[in-house]
């Protein structure tokens, strides 16, 4: 545990407080989950999943190929007939069961997720897992109320949903995909990310515990080619993807000219706008959670801080002071604020973009902290003297790196905030109510947090404008993606 206060000799050094690993039993190997059974890949391929905090190999996981995708889609197609014909109230009960089992096993799943992803246990315990259970609970309740959802009487499911999810919130993204799909009567073939397959495989076990009919949920770990095979499969009726904008565009091309319904939740470069009359201490907290939550590996991160020039110095002083109190280290330690970067690849990408930022003349400041010797780590970092022209102000870094820009007037703030190919999230900090409403109205972003940031709820639709994707997940809106409407 490296606490980032090297200059003071703090007598109140928090002793290690690690969450016990023993609550989770990770098998040495896992198969694909197809038609209710764990099986090997047809070609016998496997890949290793490691803990990004230690580089320890956690397990060996079967890698799905095209033949496995075909088998899974067939299983899902077969299951669709009965699953979609089931009374909504019965489907609901399966989902309620799943929600409850997740709650029961949440500690185990939190530790598992922390091990496989590298994010702090504080987050998996207090954010990911509660939201996962809540999401299933929420959509469970919709299953027998679809007639009242505003999509006409007796709206029909689409069929087999092919879903590809990212590594930043492995189980939560699974919940965002699977819960509405099942509630509306679709069956699912889901690919978890190659660096974080384990929680999805544990979820497969939860499906079995819940007695979910075979083939309704199929889990296919694998790399991008597995995802591409799912997306391209002729008998998939619905494609849902969360991940990078580049891959999202490729998927959009793949499904062009087909009947497949598509929803995409992609990148972002969220502007967090701080006005001079902001509640400053809460704004600092919002900036911190906006960009350092989950090591900044969040599509809706507030990665651009737009601060009114008149309060820039004061705000940056407060922010830097606050960043020195962040605790980076063992993700299983309950006091860890900043965990590991998910993979060596991601760390390399972050490092490269930060180097670009420096090369382009932005001023870098990193919180003083010691990084563990093994694993993938990046110190919380901010760039000042950034303009709209800098790469670090335009490209999604997907890491703990904040770019600070200034503005003089609300018009300028809005213009800069909207000057992006993305449009996923934005933040507004001001004590003036009319300004909040005026700015919120003009921001081209799918979710706007005013005097707060990075808040999520199953009832609240989430999704982007522009190249951040289309379609919404969460809430009544989230049903539309899985209904033939």
């Amino acid at each position, binding site marked *: 545990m490296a606490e980032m*206060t090297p200059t003071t000799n703090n007598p*109140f050094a*928090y*002793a290690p407080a690690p969450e016990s690993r023993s609550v989770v039993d990770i098998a040495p190997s896992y198969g694909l989950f197809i038609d209710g059974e764990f099986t090997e890949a047809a070609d016998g391929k496997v890949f290793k999943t490691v803990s990004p905090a230690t580089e320890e190999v956690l397990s060996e996981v079967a890698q799905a190929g095209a033949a496995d995708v075909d088998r899974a889609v067939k299983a899902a197609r077969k299951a669709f007939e009965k699953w979609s014909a089931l009374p909504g109230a019965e489907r609901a009960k399966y989902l309620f069961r799943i929600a409850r089992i997740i709650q029961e096993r949440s500690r185990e799943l939190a530790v598992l997720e922390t091990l496989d992803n590298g994010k702090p246990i504080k987050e998996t315990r207090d954010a990911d897992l509660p939201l996962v259970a809540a999401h299933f609970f929420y959509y469970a309740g919709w299953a027998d109320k679809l007639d009242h959802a505003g999509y006409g009487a007796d709206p029909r499911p689409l069929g087999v949903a092919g879903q590809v999810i990212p590594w930043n919130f492995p189980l939560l993204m699974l919940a965002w995909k699977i819960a509405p799909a099942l509630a509306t009567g679709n069956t699912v073939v889901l690919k978890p990310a190659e660096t974080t397959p384990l929680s999805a495989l544990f979820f497969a076990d939860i499906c079995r515990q819940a007695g979910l009919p075979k083939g309704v949920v199929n889990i296919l770990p694998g790399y991008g080619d597995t995802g591409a095979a799912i997306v391209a499969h002729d008998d998939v009726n619905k494609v849902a993807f969360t991940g990078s904008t580049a891959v999202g565009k490729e998927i959009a091309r793949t499904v062009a000219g087909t009947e497949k319904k598509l929803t995409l939740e992609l990148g972002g470069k969220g502007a967090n706008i701080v006005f001079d009359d902001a*509640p400053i*201490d809460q704004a600092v907290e*919002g900036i911190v959670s906006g960009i350092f939550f989950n090591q900044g590996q969040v599509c809706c991160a507030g990665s651009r801080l737009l601060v009114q020039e008149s309060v820039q110095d004061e705000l940056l002083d407060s922010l830097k002071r606050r960043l020195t109190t962040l605790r980076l280290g063992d993700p299983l330690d309950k*006091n860890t604020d900043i965990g590991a970067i998910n993979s060596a690849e991601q760390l390399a990408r972050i490092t490269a973009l930060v180097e670009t930022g420096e090369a382009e003349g932005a001023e870098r400041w990193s919180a003083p902290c010691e990084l563990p010797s093994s694993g993938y780590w990046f110190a919380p970092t901010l760039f000042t003297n950034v303009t709209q022209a800098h790469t670090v102000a335009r490209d999604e870094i997907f890491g703990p790196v904040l770019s600070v820009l200034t503005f003089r007037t609300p018009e300028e703030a809005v213009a800069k905030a909207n000057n992006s190919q993305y449009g996923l999230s934005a933040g507004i900090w001001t004590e003036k109510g009319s300004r909040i409403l005026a700015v919120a109205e003009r921001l081209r972003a799918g979710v706007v947090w005013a005097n707060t940031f990075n808040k999520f709820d199953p009832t609240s639709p989430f999704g982007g404008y522009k190249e951040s994707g289309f379609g919404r997940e969460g809430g009544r809106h989230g049903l539309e993606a899985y209904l033939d409407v």
Partner: protein
Amino acid sequence: MPTTASAFADATASDSALRRFLHGLPGVDAVGLEARAAALGTRSIKTTAKAYAIDLAISMIDLTTLEGADTPGKVRALGAKAVHPDPTDRTTPRTAAVCVYPDMVATAKETVGDSGVLVASVATAFPAGRAALDVKLADVGDAVAAGADEIDMVIDRGAFLAGKYLKVYEEIRAVKVACERADGTRARLKVIFETGELSTYDNIRRASWLGMIAGADFIKTSTGKVGVNATPPNTLLMLEAVRDFRLQTGVQIGVKPAGGIRTSKDAVKFLVLVNETAGPDWLDNHWFRFGASSLLNDLLMQRQKLATGRYSGPDYVTVD
């Protein structure tokens, strides 16, 4: 603190100037503040850190009795406990102070002697503060004359809520003068806001700055006599205020949450707030206090648990 007073001379030039200054402070978003306090409340303080925190918390207690039924016997017992909180373990730190009514100061002083435990006296018509200024000042004068090391005054909440900030300011200044002793030294002044009556976090921030520019040595949440006393968010807010005040003026001011802190777990959470908000410089009983009574026994039981590995019970700590 003439330097502080002169730094804010403009702000205190008139009622309207003072209002402009206080209302110009950054607003407080209640949900964000409470969320931050709650997040810090999830810190897991174990083993060595816990042992450190428990001893520190004991050393920060203003062991308090403020009852109509207080007697010399009660105050003597309290004083003895402050000096030797755990008679079975002389390594236990003594508390920072005992806190009593002015008429009990002499008794308290006599009991604690030269142990290092200070005597704090509430004053200014505690807890309501509803008396004429000269009565309040006489109250303070009595306590100081009787040997009080510290004075815990209450602000005039009625005046504050009516927007008469200058009246509150001047009253604090007057009390501060009354804290002076004949020998040129003076009692340290704690200013109680009764945050539960100020009601809003914005008011608590304003009161904090009002108290600080008026010369408070400590700002203190509450009297312990109303429904809502010290809470993590209101204490967090006051810690932000002293942090910012020191950054602006160089002057360090103490914080004292009082009332409602009964368990070790709570106390440790407050220390986490101190550590991560104002910073380690405040992790000292010169700068941070707990106004409490029953808290001490819970800390002692936890201390025994850490020492022995067994859970302790109320029969193993003294009831004074």
